[in-house]
């Protein structure tokens, strides 16, 4: 049972380059989320999706785009990477229907460095 799988695990980019982070979940969850984790700042929500074909902005969406073409996949894109986007990125998923007592299941993260 894979749960939430993120690829790649590590990546180094130069300023201005673009890339896409992939998240895949096999739990048939409706909701998916992208977070970034920075030292001393906990986890901050970048974008989220409440279902296939729908996305919405989170707390820190600037510089990122997302797509959810298939229910099991949630892609995070950086169009023009900046050093401030150096971070560890986590994808998470959870069951639907807005019931707030649903735990989020996290992947193991993508460690991204922008030079």
């Amino acid at each position: 049972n894979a749960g939430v799988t993120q690829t790649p695990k590590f990546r180094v980019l130069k300023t201005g380059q673009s890339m896409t982070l992939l998240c895949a979940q096999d739990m048939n969850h409706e909701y998916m989320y992208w977070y970034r984790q920075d030292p001393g700042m906990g986890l901050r929500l970048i974008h989220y999706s409440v279902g296939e074909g729908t996305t919405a902005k989170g707390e820190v969406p600037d510089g990122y785009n997302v797509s959810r073409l298939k229910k099991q996949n949630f892609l995070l894109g950086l169009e023009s990477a900046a050093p401030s986007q150096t971070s560890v990125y986590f994808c998470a998923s959870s069951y639907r229907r807005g019931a707030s007592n649903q735990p989020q299941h996290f992947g193991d993260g993508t460690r991204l460095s922008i030079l």
Partner: protein
Amino acid sequence: QQQVKQSPQSLIVQKGGIPIINCAYENTAFDYFPWYQQFPGKGPALLIAIRPDVSEKKEGRFTISFNKSAKQFSLHIMDSQPGDSATYFCAASRNSGGYQKVTFGTGTKLQVIP
């Protein structure tokens, strides 16, 4: 206010000790309070969670104490072991526009010394 304030930032205890991590929140709309455990190189994993109509919840060696009037909750780890060394995040969530909005604390790095 959407903040969840967590303390301490780091904690070192001897094996068998009882580390306590505290969190405080402002928004009374929060209705679910999970704790996540994160090991180096891994993603956060749900450890234990509580709803505000309960004052205490135990799961094995982990206990959440919840004080609704003070808007505070804490994690206690009984008989701590070196394997408990990890970063712990408290969180608070609420339904927001049809999805689960989760606000995380800034994390506590726990080290349990043998």
